[in-house]
């Protein structure tokens, strides 16, 4: 009994952070209709600012720093400034990024807020000394006895703070005129403007306040949760899960659900200390919980076909189905062959990685660009491919082309599972589920020691008819035969995908993307086609993951983290998510691709890659919602149009 109580209360600190994030998400959604993926990162920044102040008295800003005190700053000052920085980050996110995108498609909003999330996460390790930092205690360190267990007073205080925040937010929305007006503005902005309230200012107020509240609970809870350059960012997921359980309506339900998830994870931890608990379930199980919860909750609440009057179209950048022009294809292939033959060492490795990433980018063009399903899980599918590749080559000795197909099929199965929620969930909500799914796969499969052999996930080199297609040979980092093999595989799949997109499949994808109800009314099986899209997309990503695995000789989990996945989606979005050309450009820009090689090898700023990518992403998302290839096309169509009109005169 006392152990049960102990573990329940151990979940309070994290649960409180989930709770405050969840209630903030509901509040921000009520005010602006945005799901803010960066809410966890907002907490992360405040936590680190406060920790640094508490340790050295230095106030770190995104650029530059100020020495506030000689030696550690007083606790109250550190906390206050930490909270203020969270609030400011939230306010700036609203003013600079989300407000300009107020009426943009759901995809742009998701991408932009993911961009802010990535920006902060890549900034933290650059600005703070994240090795060995410890958060100084903030709250009294005593314990009190509850039902026979020693419970830290600090955890109870953090819990109390989070609940107070939730109650205050709920009261604000329910009882104050501002709150009521804020809710009204999410529904009808013009009506609100007529009443004289400024929706912008009310929204800014909500962003600022929730930023401060999230910062406060996280900063005060950080000594007991621990300092970490990433984890707070991902607390947004349980937060989102809780917010979705509350159907984005009730701040109080969201907070309670967030707390419950925290406690539940802590209880899972307790279970895993028991003998009967299976070894494979010891790692990553807690992270899969939010995924399962979101999936079930959304599935229960969702509708398979949107009702009349319900939100049903996800506005997306326009699509012009690819024309198969053999000339262009030949030029691109020739250029790629030249790039392979004329480079060596890390550059050729960059070229090969770009070709592979292009395939994974293509999987997103199919799924998100054509079918309209926002997925943040592409890299997780790729990783699954690589993971299975390591098994089938080392343990079962499956020979080369088959060794690509089997893992890709495994990824396909996983793709369908993650895709099931899409049958009833749309837009930004689906992005949440896929992100949760990706994190679950990452921690439960890739990060699970029970699934990884002692010597790592080795992969045997491919051979075909006695021909060695291995990536390394002696001192050669990337052999020509390997590079050409990658080109053949990716080229074939791209060709097949282009045919699909031009054909019946692409047509029904686009029909579903533009109007699910109408698609069902012309006889398209919307559910089946969506699953087909997820399956096909995961297959492509799975092959890509195998190729990445082959190019490394062993599966490096770092190639497939959720961050790489997020960065990739954003890169594809920036490059143009509705076209083949967009996938090609995304391949060049992708992590470890040609651009990354250039930054690393030529400019020596490789460690800034993710920061540069995040900034580019946010800027593009705000200024240029159709992506690079989209605007090039618009410009060229404009030119052609001008020329033809002139010719007619």
């Amino acid at each position, binding site marked *: 009994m006392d152990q049960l109580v102990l573990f329940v209360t151990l979940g309070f600190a994290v649960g409180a952070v989930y709770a405050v994030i969840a209630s903030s998400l509901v509040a921000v959604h009520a005010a602006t209709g945005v799901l803010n993926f960066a809410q966890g990162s907002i907490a992360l920044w405040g936590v680190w600012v406060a920790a640094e102040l508490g340790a050295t008295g230095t106030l770190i800003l995104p650029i530059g720093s100020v020495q506030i005190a000689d030696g550690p700053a007083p606790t109250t000052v550190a906390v206050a400034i930490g909270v203020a920085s969270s609030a400011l980050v939230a306010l700036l996110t609203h003013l600079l990024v989300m407000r300009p995108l107020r009426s943009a498609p759901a995809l742009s909003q998701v991408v932009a807020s993911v961009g802010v999330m990535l920006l902060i996460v890549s900034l933290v390790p650059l600005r703070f000394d994240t090795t060995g930092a410890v958060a100084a205690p903030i709250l009294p360190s005593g314990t009190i006895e509850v039902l026979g267990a020693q419970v830290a007073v600090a955890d109870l205080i953090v819990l109390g703070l989070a609940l107070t925040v939730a109650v205050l937010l709920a009261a604000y929305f329910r009882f104050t005129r501002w709150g009521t007006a804020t809710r009204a503005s999410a529904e009808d902005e013009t009506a609100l403007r007529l009443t004289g309230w400024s929706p912008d200012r009310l929204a800014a107020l909500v962003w600022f306040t929730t930023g401060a509240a999230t910062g406060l609970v996280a900063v005060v809870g950080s000594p007991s949760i621990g300092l970490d350059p990433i984890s707070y960012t991902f607390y947004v997921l349980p937060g989102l899960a809780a917010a979705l359980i509350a159907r984005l309506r009730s701040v109080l339900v969201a907070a309670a659900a967030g707390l419950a998830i925290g406690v539940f994870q802590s209880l899972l931890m307790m279970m895993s200390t028991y003998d009967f608990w299976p070894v494979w379930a010891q790692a990553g199980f807690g992270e899969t919980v939010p995924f399962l919860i979101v999936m079930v909750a959304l599935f229960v609440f969702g509708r398979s076909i949107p009702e009349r009057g319900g939100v049903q179209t996800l506005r997306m950048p326009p699509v012009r189905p690819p024309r198969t022009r053999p000339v262009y294809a030949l030029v691109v292939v020739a250029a790629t062959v030249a790039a392979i033959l004329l480079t060596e060492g890390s550059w050729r490795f960059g070229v090969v990685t770009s070709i592979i990433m292009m395939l994974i980018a293509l999987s997103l063009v199919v799924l998100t660009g054509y079918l309209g399903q926002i997925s943040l899980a592409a890299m997780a599918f790729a990783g699954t491919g690589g993971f299975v590749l390591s098994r089938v080559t080392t343990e079962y000795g499956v020979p080369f082309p088959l060794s690509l197909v089997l893992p890709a099929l495994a990824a396909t199965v996983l793709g369908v599972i993650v895709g099931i929620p899409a049958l009833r969930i749309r837009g930004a909500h689906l992005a949440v589920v896929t992100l949760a799914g990706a994190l679950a796969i990452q921690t439960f499969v890739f990060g699970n020691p029970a699934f990884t052999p002692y010597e790592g996930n080795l992969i045997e080199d491919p051979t075909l008819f006695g021909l060695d297609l291995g990536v390394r040979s002696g001192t050669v980092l990337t052999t020509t035969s390997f590079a050409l093999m990658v080109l053949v595989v990716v080229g074939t799949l791209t060709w097949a995908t282009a045919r699909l997109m031009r054909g019946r499949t692409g047509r029904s994808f686009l029909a579903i993307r533009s109007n699910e109800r109408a698609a069902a009314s*012309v006889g398209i099986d919307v559910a089946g086609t969506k699953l087909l899209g997820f399956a096909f997309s995961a297959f492509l990503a799975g092959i890509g993951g195998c190729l990445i695995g082959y190019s490394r000789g062993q599966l490096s989990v770092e190639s497939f983290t959720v961050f790489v996945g997020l960065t990739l989606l954003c890169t594809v979005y920036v490059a143009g998510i509705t076209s083949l050309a967009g996938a090609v450009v995304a391949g060049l820009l992708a992590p470890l691709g040609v651009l990354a090689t250039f930054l690393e090898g030529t400019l020596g700023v490789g460690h800034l890659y993710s920061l540069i990518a995040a900034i580019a992403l946010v800027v593009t998302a705000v200024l240029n919602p159709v992506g690079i290839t989209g605007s090039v096309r618009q410009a060229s169509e404009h030119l052609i149009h001008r020329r033809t009109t002139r010719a007619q005169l």
Partner: protein
Amino acid sequence: MPSSEHDRGGAALLEIRDLTVRYGGVVANDGVNLAIDRGEVVGLIGPNGAGKTSLVDAVTGFTAADGEVVLDGRRLDRLPPHRRRRAGLARTWQAGELFADLTVADNVAVAVQRRGWAGLVADVLGRSARTAPDPSLEMLGLLDDADRRPDELSLGRQRLVGVARALAGGSSVVLLDEPAAGLDTDESEAFGDVVRTMATSGRGVLLIDHDMNLVLNVCDRVYVLDFGRVIACGTPTEIRADAAVVAAYLGEEPVA
């Protein structure tokens, strides 16, 4: 044709029996019985909010409803919308609802093509999906617009694309929800002829429209809906003479 046509039992092509639709407290359809025969054009009229669109939604599976929908002897009321369409029951939408990213030709072609895995295999290995335009495009005079996108067309013509999409692929019954809205008088008259042509091949047609001239001139029989109930049913001549209809609906409107 006798006005009691709808209760003569199993012979009609489409039979709607005792259909009830509720939205929370609102009863949008209340025990509606309606039948459409082969080659018959049936009109459905009623004031705004009478429940016409709800009826179409319920019959095609887009709204939960109680009651039976029987097409050619086969119960459809438990099937999802796409299966009903594949069984031959097609509809148009009051608000158009075309596929904005597809050309007019593709809007129609997507309704008849091979689907799912079969379509996927055919795409990769088989012939191109660009086939001759569907005959329904010609029937509705849309051939010239085949390569345009819906938003380049007038609202009236967009409706016609919706009709073409419903006709494509051998649908045996089409439910047309205000297809002539946005057409001018001449176009509307021409459209009336097209509706008659649709039915000549044995297809059943349900025509919902607020244009009384169109409905009463084109239809074989007309149902009148008010507050979700059928208040009258009969030939155009009978409907013109029906006191209840005049009171409920036609009222002040002059009838040709």
